[in-house]
């Protein structure tokens, strides 16, 4: 569900980034009160979720696949504040080294994949179900419910951010329906996987999942860390043999939309087009209703100009390379 830069406008990206930074600053303030031994645990957990996110699991019957978000799992084990920060670290590494998501869309991804799970689904749904009594059933139900809600909110955010940016032609209604639908299934699976991991932790070290975040344990976090590294290795190493090559939820939604109705432009589409027309700085392209002779000329000159521009750039690159080779030879 990582959003790329190409679909985001600077305004949407900037606003989301500002919101994400605000939430991060608040989380950091809260995390500083925690004991520092948890920092390696945060790093290990983040690496574990990172590995898990690389494995796509196929969702039966849909021809699509999803991957673990991890926000809810991080929130349950590290608390909402540390969980949100770990998610941010994962997303930053993914942007920088794997181009999974983008710099402009970083704020959007932090909100879509971190905020809803850590600050809405976790406290309002998961904690509500498990507060009075902890049991395997409650953990499972809580995880599934929280995951589904978190992913629904995240998927809807993706749609809103995409439509508001106006870089795509996707029709709103069909897009929303497809996105919400596929992420319902993904949320269910994520809830089950999260529940499995949390149940294990709860059996071995229940104090880790205590409500009281300041509750420290002299025994250390060894067993928990071991357990996570095991699961991380399983996911990262062996399960990847079965990693799904099907398109992920967003792609599947778009594919589904294509097969559906294409007639009838929605109100949102028309409105967005108007906005786009007004903001287009250089409307070089003419459309069918304005039949000007200059139209063909503009497009042709565009092509000519492009060829020359790219040619100049290539020449510049070549010249620099030549100069480098000459200076290198001279210094020998």
């Amino acid at each position, binding site marked *: 569900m990582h959003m790329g830069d190409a679909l985001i406008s600077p305004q949407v990206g900037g606003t989301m980034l500002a919101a994400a930074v605000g939430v991060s600053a608040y989380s*950091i303030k809260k995390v500083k009160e925690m004991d520092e031994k948890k*920092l390696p645990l945060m790093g290990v957990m983040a690496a574990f979720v990172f590995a898990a996110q690389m494995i796509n699991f196929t969702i039966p019957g849909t021809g699509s696949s999803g991957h673990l978000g991890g926000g809810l799992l991080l929130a349950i084990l590290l608390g909402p504040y540390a969980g949100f920060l770990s998610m941010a670290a994962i997303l930053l590494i993914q942007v920088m*080294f794997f181009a999974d998501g983008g710099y402009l869309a970083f704020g959007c991804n932090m909100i879509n994949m971190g905020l809803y799970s850590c600050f809405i689904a976790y406290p309002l749904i998961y904690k509500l179900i498990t507060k009075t009594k902890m049991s395997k059933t409650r953990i499972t139900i809580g995880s599934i419910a929280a995951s589904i809600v978190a992913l629904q909110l995240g998927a809807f955010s993706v749609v809103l951010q995409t439509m508001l940016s106006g870089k795509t032609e996707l029709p709103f209604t069909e897009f929303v329906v497809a996105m919400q639908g596929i992420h319902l299934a993904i949320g269910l699976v994520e809830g089950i996987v999260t529940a499995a991991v949390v149940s294990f932790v709860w059996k071995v070290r229940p104090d880790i999942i205590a409500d009281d975040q300041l509750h420290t344990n002299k025994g250390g976090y060894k067993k928990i860390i*071991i357990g996570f*590294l095991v699961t991380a*290795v399983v996911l990262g190493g062996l399960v990847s043999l079965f990693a799904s090559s099907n398109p992920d939820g967003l792609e599947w939604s778009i594919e589904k939309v294509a097969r559906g109705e*294409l007639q009838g432009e929605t109100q949102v589409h028309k409105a967005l087009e108007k906005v786009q027309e007004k903001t287009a700085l250089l409307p070089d392209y003419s459309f069918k209703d304005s039949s000007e002779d200059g139209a063909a000329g503009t497009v042709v000159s565009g092509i000519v100009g492009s060829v020359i521009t790219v040619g100049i750039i290539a020449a510049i690159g070549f010249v620099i390379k030549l100069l480098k080779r000459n200076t290198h030879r001279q210094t020998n």
Partner: protein
Amino acid sequence: MADIIGSIVEVKHIDELSKKKNPINNMHPLIKLILTLAYICILASFSRYEVVGLLPFILYPVIVMVVCDIPSGKILKRVLVIEPFIVFAGILNPVFDRSVVEIGELSFSAGWLTFLSLLIRSTLMVTAGFLLIATTGIDDIARTLSMLRVPSVFVLLFLLTYRYIFVLMDEAGRLVKAYHMRAPGQSGVKIKVWGSMVGQLLLRTFNRAQAIYQSMIFKGYNGRYSFYYSKSLKLWDIVYFTAWIIYMSAARVFNIPLLISNFVSRL
């Protein structure tokens, strides 16, 4: 599994590139970070129908790749991994967009323009992102984050996560490979072996992580990320930065390819 190990190796390789000595690598990392972000923002601010006006922005990655001797094949390979999704997202644009563009006798949906625009823009943005890492190692990135007043907790978490990922994947990859070399023809690992293998890996990885944390403590880790950055901001850095900003702004406001073609046609 091979895919994951392969991409981890690629990541390490891109990080290694940043250690080469050349004018851009030696530049202050803050300049490179701000330039990259400005580049991405300016590209994102174009209208979705803009295709030709995007082309002057190819100059930035070309110059960086040539000056820093970055093998274009490596970067392109990483970028191509991302392309399918963009293609998928945009391939329906010709269908969705109702407006039509005419060139002489041919008329085609304006959706092709948005699709092309999306393709060019995403390629340039992703390339710029990779080039930032290829010219600025992870340590410099962390220092830059600190310079931008990002709190130590986050910078340390970022660095720790990065390090642990390699630790984990490295061990896992070696174990799986060793197993497969002794078990030809098998696609997975036998359950009986798997238990002890993973347990072994677990202890090894955990001990290494524990050792990292302990050495941090012994070397005076106190929760704060302090750094010493020896390179100061030089005049050349500022000149480089200003030149690029002027070029990118000009390319944003004026449609340079069209200007060039108009100029040429008048000769």
